[in-house]
């Protein structure tokens, strides 16, 4: 469990990225921070592994105040996946995956063997192990990034817009893969995105953020869709434009669900 307690972050240039932020991130679930750029979502994520230290307030992981923990050690037990994979270009795929275990002192041979298994886990062929990151496609690199994030078997996995730079088809694939992995491994995932559809797809808990890290609404995707608390949320999730408004049309003896344009999207099961 991760707990934010009235966390504020003001950068040296005076920008207040996050102000008085309170939230409980439940364990073994996916929590998604979603909002437009400048809403402080990445700052919030980076405060969890102390890439950024809060100006005031505290962040607790399983009841432990992170400000009392050494940043380097803390980061090694938290998985991190970022946009554009952030792989080390001078290390082979397998050594990239083995990075954190090796930093933790695991023997190189053992770490590499485990890394091969992780390639299987994220759906990559083992023949890619000896290649360099740049020889891989964007989607493959992103999978390596996920494998690297999982390598030290962390309880927490932070994902910072990990699929922002891959094409829509690959993104959809990676999203499904992320759901499968999260369910299979039971990690606490904190995911940052500006894409509300991605947030609703992946999140058990979705946090909609406004400028300055102010929470507009927290809830399950269904709760937010059913009761957007204000116009901002309604507009953000697309409810005001009728984007989320589906209607039922009777066709013969079946109920067909159609969207705002009358385009059929599915059939109701009786």
């Amino acid at each position, binding site marked *: 469990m991760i707990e934010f307690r009235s966390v504020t972050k003001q950068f040296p240039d005076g920008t207040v990225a996050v102000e008085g932020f309170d939230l409980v991130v439940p364990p073994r679930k996916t929590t998604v921070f979603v909002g437009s750029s400048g809403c402080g979502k990445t700052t919030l994520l980076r405060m969890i592994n102390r890439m950024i230290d809060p100006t005031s307030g505290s962040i607790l992981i399983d009841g432990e105040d992170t400000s009392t923990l050494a940043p*380097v050690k803390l980061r*090694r037990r938290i998985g991190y996946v*970022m946009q554009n994979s952030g*792989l*080390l270009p001078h290390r082979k795929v397998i050594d990239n995956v083995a990075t954190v275990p090796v*930093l*933790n002192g695991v023997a190189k041979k053992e770490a590499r063997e485990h890394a091969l298994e992780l390639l299987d886990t994220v759906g990559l062929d083992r023949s890619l192990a000896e290649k*360099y990151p740049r*020889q891989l496609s964007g989607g493959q690199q992103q999978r390596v990034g996920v494998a*690297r994030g999982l390598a030290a078997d962390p309880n927490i996995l932070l994902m910072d817009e990990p699929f922002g730079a891959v094409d829509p088809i690959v993104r959809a694939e990676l999203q499904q893969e992320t759901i499968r992995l999260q369910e299979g491994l039971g990690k606490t995932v904190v995911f940052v995105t500006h894409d509300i559809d991605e947030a609703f797809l992946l999140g058990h808990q979705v946090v909609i953020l406004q400028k300055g890290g102010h929470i507009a609404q927290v809830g399950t995707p269904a709760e937010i869709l059913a009761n957007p608390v204000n116009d901002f949320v309604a507009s953000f999730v697309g409810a005001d434009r009728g984007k989320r408004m589906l209607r039922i049309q009777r066709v013969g003896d079946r109920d067909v669900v159609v969207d705002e344009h009358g385009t059929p999207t599915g059939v109701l099961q009786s």
Partner: protein
Amino acid sequence: MNWVGNNLDLVWELMLAHISLCIPPIIIGFLISIPIGWVANRYRISRGTILVVLGLLYTIPSLPLFIFMPLILGTPQLSSVNVVVALTIYAVALMVRTATDGLGSVDKDILQAASAMGYSGWQRFWRVELPLAGPVLLSGLRVVSASTVSLATIGSVIGVTSLGYLFVNGLQRSIPAEVITGIIAVLIIAIVFDLVLVLIGRLVLPWSRADRVKRSRTREVERARTAVLTGAGQ
């Protein structure tokens, strides 16, 4: 080329002397430049000052510098240390800018990712920053190597043995073959040094070959820089 045949021993001896004169400045210059480049790159304010001062160093004419070295260092007139130190100064002057650019060229996202993985600052420098600056550092080192090998000949003017002896002696005694032999010998050393550096690069930076596009870009930058610098110094 009768002269060469009759003086093979001399030429060989001078080549060895020349090589042993050149290797320390190249290595020491490289080692000194990395921390200076790191500081210049890390603290933006210091960057301008450091680069200007070192740029000026390279414009000091070499002969006076060689002559003044004993006065500054308190070494004997004929000591090879004078030449080694002077050549090291030139090596540093050339290499610091490359080191600064090389370290600065490392993708900030990758450094952030490395920190997020749990590299400590020190580990990140040795295992990520320095290797990734490698291709640029290597190209700078090749320029330094060529410059050092050619500058070392001037040592002979102040009495420190190097291939420059063949120029001085050949001119004084009007033996063109001797001068030409000297030029060729200098060229051979410069080329061999360059090949050795390229080979070391292949061994130490195998990943940069997987990355043709970036390499050719690095080479272009370096070529432009060399073109600017070859006007200065000598």
